């Protein structure tokens, strides 16, 4: 599942949702920007936050918190949006609580998720969603590595926003 790169070193853009640490391969990330206003899309799945205007381009903003199965906090505060490169999928990004550091990790440190089934993030486990690529043991905590390529695909499996 993990692409074999020539160098065993990989860099991850990490961020927090509900206090947990997640990471996305920095090569998939186009930019990180403050979560400015977004336009809600009524009738869309709950995990869709809405449309964002990024310098004249319309991006679909997903709510990663929802996708991972965490409850929506009443007061969220301004989050951040991570936008992906075109190769990941048609113009889209995810909303995260806070951005953490760029972590440089040795490929060897990453354990394939399959071997570590019990260590899955709660949400993904609950939903059986295939977005976690692997787990990386950091000094103090675990870093869950996500695969943004599957995000758009699982939207369809999430039900429409209930009334």
């Amino acid at each position, binding site marked *: 599942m993990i692409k074999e790169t020539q160098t065993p070193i990989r860099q991850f853009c990490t961020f927090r949702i509900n206090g947990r640490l997640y990471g996305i391969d920095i090569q998939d990330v186009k930019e990180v920007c403050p979560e400015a*206003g*977004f*336009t*809600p*899309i*009524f*009738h*869309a799945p709950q995990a*869709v936050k*809405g*449309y*964002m*205007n990024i310098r*004249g381009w*319309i991006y*679909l903003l997903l709510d990663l918190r929802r996708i991972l199965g965490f409850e929506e906090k009443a007061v969220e505060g301004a989050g951040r949006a991570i936008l992906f490169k075109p190769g990941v999928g*048609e*113009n*889209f990004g995810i909303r995260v609580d806070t951005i953490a550091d760029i972590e440089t990790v040795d490929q060897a440190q990453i354990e394939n998720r399959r071997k570590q089934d019990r260590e899955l993030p709660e949400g993904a486990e609950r939903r059986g969603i295939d977005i976690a690529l692997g787990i990386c043991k950091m000094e103090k905590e675990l870093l869950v590595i996500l695969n943004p390529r599957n995000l*758009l695909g699982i*939207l*369809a499996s999430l039900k*429409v*926003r209930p*009334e």
Partner: protein
Amino acid sequence: MNDVNEKFDDLLLNDPELVANFIAESKEHLESIEDDFLNLEKHKDHPDQELLNKVFRAIHSVKGAAGFLSLDNMTRLAHVMETLLADMRSGKILAESQYVDALLAGVDLLALMLDDVAHHQDVDITGVHDRLTGLLEGGATAPDRSVPKPPPAAAAKDIRLPEKAVADRGDTVRIPVDTLDKLMLQAGELVLVRNQHLLAVDESDPASRSIAHRLDLVTAELQETIIRTRMQPIGRIIGKFPRIVRELGKRLGKQIRIDISGSEAELDKTILESLTDPLTHIIRNCCGHGIESSAERVQAGKPETGLITLNAFHEAGRFSIEIRDDGRGIDLSLIRKKVTQKSLKTAAELEQMSDKEILHLVVLPGFSTADEASQVSGRGVGMDVVKNTVEKLGGSFEIVSAVGEGTAVNLRLPLTLAIMPALIVSQNGNLFAIPQNSLVELVCLYDEDVWTKMEYADGLEICRLRGRLLPMVRLSEVLARPMRFSRETGVEVAKKYQQQEMVDKTGPEKTAEFRESLNFVVLRADNSRYGLIVDSILGTEEIVVKPMHRAVKSLGIYAGATIMGNGKVALILDIEGIARHAETMLDIAVTAEDSDKDAAGQDLQSVLLFRSGPKEQFAMPVPLIRRIEKIAMSAIERIGDREYITVDEKSTRVLRLDHALKVTPVAEHESMHLILPRLFSRPVGILVSDLIDIEETAVELNIESYPEDGLLGTAIIRNTMTLFVDINRLVEIVEPEWSKGISS
């Protein structure tokens, strides 16, 4: 053959551009040639030398280029065509239809080979080739033409000259469509930036104001120019119609002529291309079903040759195409028959429809799969496809027909797709764009009108607008409900707003949702109309349409998104989609049909129309009424919570409708009326504030739209929702202990 192919493959490999150029140029040569052949045929006795030369040159160029590329088949075919044309040019033969037929067949093959040059050898040209050769030999020997040398100068006069020679080559450049598309996209972006800049500009600074103004102008011009690069004359697709008509006419044994005007009118390439099929369809329908046989026409006192006119023109920023035939027209009674036969509509539904609506039933999918029984049925063939295509392009479609006189189909299309004018509305603080082409009018109701113009029935919210009933949909409710409306949803919504209205109107306190005014937009969707209630209407704006993101594309209520001048993304509403989503709230006709369980309920009935409260209109069948008594309010006596009045020396119980039904209270004035019903052993009368009239009407009671205890149902009488009272039940409600006393 292999040898030849190799040579060509070699070329294709080494110089693909050369090959591509050859194909493009040859196609250009062939493009107008059909028309030219047909013109030659039409004026065969006075051959237009210039036109002959042009045709000859075109075929010659194709032959030359094909020879150069070693496209053997093509060269051979072009050669024999050229020879035939040479004979024609020298006056040896005239442009008889047999020659023109063969030449047209040749052109078809050439075009076919050009479409797939690499496999051109696979195309079988022998048939056509032999036919042409045969004609050549025959033409030389056969005695059929002793050549009358035409006086070319005289002939030239009444011959339509070919339109300005294709273009001066040196002034044009070939540009891939991709590049144009990209340019178009960027121009769209520029328009957005311009819009944003106009909002941000510091109006007090003259320098920046003038820059903004110039940016505005330049952008508009640039956009216009780029749009123009994508414009192509409609002649590109309608140019082949003379030939199609000619061939269809031959096949059907009819004489048909087509008159085309406006070939040079231009519209966006994308729109143009998607029009090919619909237009061809319409033309085929005209030939096949519209135009009668010559014998029939003569009998009807029409000229023997049927005429189809196609007229394309620009009008008010839209592109119009009118296709008219002078054939037999569409017989409405046959459509009615057909539609009921196929159970596409019920008799009751048809009854409610105007002639125009019935005519448009030919586009019902399923209507077209007609049997051969009637000529009219065939007219629907593929008309649903036509309608869909046109609507997808944001255009509209209309059929007008008069039996015996002919049929006209009018298409109205936008000139371009990417930028369109839209109405911006706001709902719950979000902006939405409504494409202007589906807009009929904007309405704002103030003060009392908010209450008096709106009527509620179970599952329906209706506005009485200039005497017409308009079903209403609330954008807020549509947005809040991702599931398609069920009948229950409609009931729930209508009830909610009816109750809200009652409170606002009568209660001391207004509800939180109370508004001084009610804004709605009247929209046209699929031949139906509805009002969309929104928070506020902001104005119109030119918007750049962006498609919906693939992940949310399946949502039916949006047609796309756009970026507004303030940088916010606004969703573009899909008017048809919303109509589908809230279908149950729109379909007045359907609810009327529901009640029509027995089709025999068409007898006229006289009903008394009256009012009790200020708002509702009530009705009661006249046969159930014994008498109407004029009474004075002051004569009513109260005993406990009951009211009595003396009529015919009997103490008569006064029944107020608002005591039994959820309706507005009786509007009291000094002089009132009392309806005394028949069939009651005990005297009772309904207190009425105003008598309206007695109406003879075919009542189709609608039971489901407003089921309330004490009502028989509702019906639309004089464009107003009318409640039919169930007098027996009403008496039971107010005087339960009487129930035994009702005589049967």
